[in-house]
């Protein structure tokens, strides 16, 4: 991509890097692929998160989509639960849980989220895998970039961009299927009869996937991610981060295999530069902790392989803490320092909010009633000396079965509902019912009197709501 633009000199480039706060002119990275323990973890997370993401919309539950944030109906279906806008409380709690989980994991082991689970990392990983399969390894990719346009280059490029585009479209489609029922979308696919906005969002999300994971990659983490900017405040000297053991590694330099590095006045780092080649953000971990490091541990895997080849012990680059490095702690002492006021506090808040969330879900009454007094007709005197007030009851049945509800009223001598006082509400539906309530003229004082409605499910007596309101007598 660089071939069109003039190449800036290294000095100029460094200056630009400091001045530009967002999206620096960039040297394209040719990231070398890596295998090993942490690469396996990253791939495991890619599989887990993407099986969930691409798979969830296809799951069915009670004859409907299991997980659907149905925007048109303004209801969120999540397996057995149906959430309404009134349940925004749970969403708020969920956000607090996510935030504290992020704080907690960052305090313990740095940017675990960024390195393993963030969609930016996951999709970049997938897109780079496709690139590697089609264009070859990092050396071949660089050569291809520098080569003049030819039939072969065009074919390889089209194959890569095509594969990326297909995956992006599928990702966009899946994303929209979380908000608009999948079955309807599938029908639209066969006829290409998407609604304009569905199509817009599929393309929108798809293009962003393509742009972020295919083109921009580490630039997103470095210049666009807010979390990358403030994550360091959660770090302390006992936070596990990816660390180069400078004491052991320096002075670095090449040497023949099989000689003792100390005998030639060198440390264990052979300065092969593979840790830099595998870094998806293009930094040199040997310069110490930098905000660009997303904690993916690719350099650990790479360095361990080099250490194996040299017959040196592994772990020249490893997860360690500032304190451990300074005081030469073993893993036992590092683990012992995981428990400290900061992590205990984050952990305690996290546990507390989680318990609250589960408790709230368990206690959530799947029936809600709003009582609105009819303002148009206040108190009215009707036949037999009764006083009449009119109410509108909004009965929200949050269960997935159609239910009959019995309505009763209490609070005043002789108070009764005109009519049978029954209402049928469909599954996960709302029914508005207008009720005329009658009270003998002599059983209340002029002005407001407190009464209450009891709404009870016919088939489940435990499903009941008691809702207070006022009954007006003429003055």
């Amino acid at each position, binding site marked *: 991509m660089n071939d069109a633009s003039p190449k800036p000199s290294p000095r100029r480039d460094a200056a630009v890097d400091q001045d*530009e*706060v*967002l*999206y*620096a002119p960039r040297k394209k990275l040719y990231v070398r692929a890596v295998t090993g323990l942490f690469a396996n973890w990253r791939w495991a997370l890619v599989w887990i998160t993407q099986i969930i993401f691409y798979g969830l919309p296809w799951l069915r539950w009670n004859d409907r989509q299991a997980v659907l944030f149905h*925007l*048109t109906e*303004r209801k969120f279906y999540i397996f057995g639960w149906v959430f309404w*806008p009134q349940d*925004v409380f749970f*969403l708020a709690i969920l956000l607090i849980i996510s935030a504290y989980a992020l704080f907690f994991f960052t305090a313990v082991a740095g940017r675990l989220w960024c390195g393993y689970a963030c969609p930016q990392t996951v999709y970049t990983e997938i897109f780079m895998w496709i690139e590697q399969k089609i264009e070859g390894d990092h050396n071949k990719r660089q050569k291809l970039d520098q080569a003049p346009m030819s039939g072969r280059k065009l074919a390889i490029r089209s194959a890569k961009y095509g594969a990326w585009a297909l995956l992006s479209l599928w990702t966009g489609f899946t994303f929209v299927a979380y*908000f*608009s029922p999948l079955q309807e979308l599938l029908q639209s696919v066969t006829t290409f009869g998407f*609604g*304009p*906005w*569905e199509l*817009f*969002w599929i393309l929108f999300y798809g293009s962003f996937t393509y742009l972020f994971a295919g083109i921009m990659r580490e630039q997103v983490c470095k*210049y*666009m991610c*807010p979390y990358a900017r403030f994550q360091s405040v959660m770090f302390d000297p006992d936070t596990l981060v990816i660390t180069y053991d400078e004491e052991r590694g320096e002075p670095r330099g090449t040497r023949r295999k099989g000689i003792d590095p100390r005998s030639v006045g060198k440390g264990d780092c052979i300065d092969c530069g593979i840790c830099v080649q595998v870094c998806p953000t293009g930094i040199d971990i040997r310069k110490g902790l930098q905000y660009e490091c997303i904690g993916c541990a690719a350099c650990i895997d790479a360095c361990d392989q080099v250490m194996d080849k040299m017959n040196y012990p592994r772990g020249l680059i490893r997860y360690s803490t500032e304190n451990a490095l300074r005081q030469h702690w073993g893993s036992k002492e590092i683990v012992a320092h995981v428990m400290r006021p900061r992590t205990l506090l984050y952990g305690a808040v996290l546990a507390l909010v989680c318990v609250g969330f589960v408790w709230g879900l368990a206690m959530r009454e799947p029936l809600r009633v709003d009582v609105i007094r009819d303002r148009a007709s206040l108190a009215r005197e009707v036949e037999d000396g009764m006083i009449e007030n009119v109410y509108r009851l909004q009965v929200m049945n949050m269960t997935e079965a159609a239910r009959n509800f019995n309505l009763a009223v209490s609070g005043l001598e002789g108070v009764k509902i005109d009519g049978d006082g029954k209402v049928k509400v469909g599954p996960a539906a709302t029914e508005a019912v207008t009720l005329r309530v009658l009270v003998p003229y002599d059983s209340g004082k002029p002005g407001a009197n407190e009464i209450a409605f009891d709404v009870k499910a016919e088939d489940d007596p435990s499903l009941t709501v008691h809702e207070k309101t006022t009954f007006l007598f003429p003055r």
Partner: protein
Amino acid sequence: MRKWILVLWPSFLVAALAEGVFFTVVDPQELYLFGKPVHYSALATYSIGFIGFWLVCAASSLTTIFLQRPATELNQPSRHH
């Protein structure tokens, strides 16, 4: 390029937040447009709402970087005269 991202990206993030909060509280069916109830589909209302939020936030970001121009940059043209 950098200025485009400075304008469009933070405004995108804030617009997503504003969209979520606004439409959690307000039902699009209850909105009025020039005195008449909104007759668009819900998805269209949400989408237009999001783009609207994005535009407003982007306008704010644009003003920010416009006002952020240093004195040297502002004085430059007159120096050449």
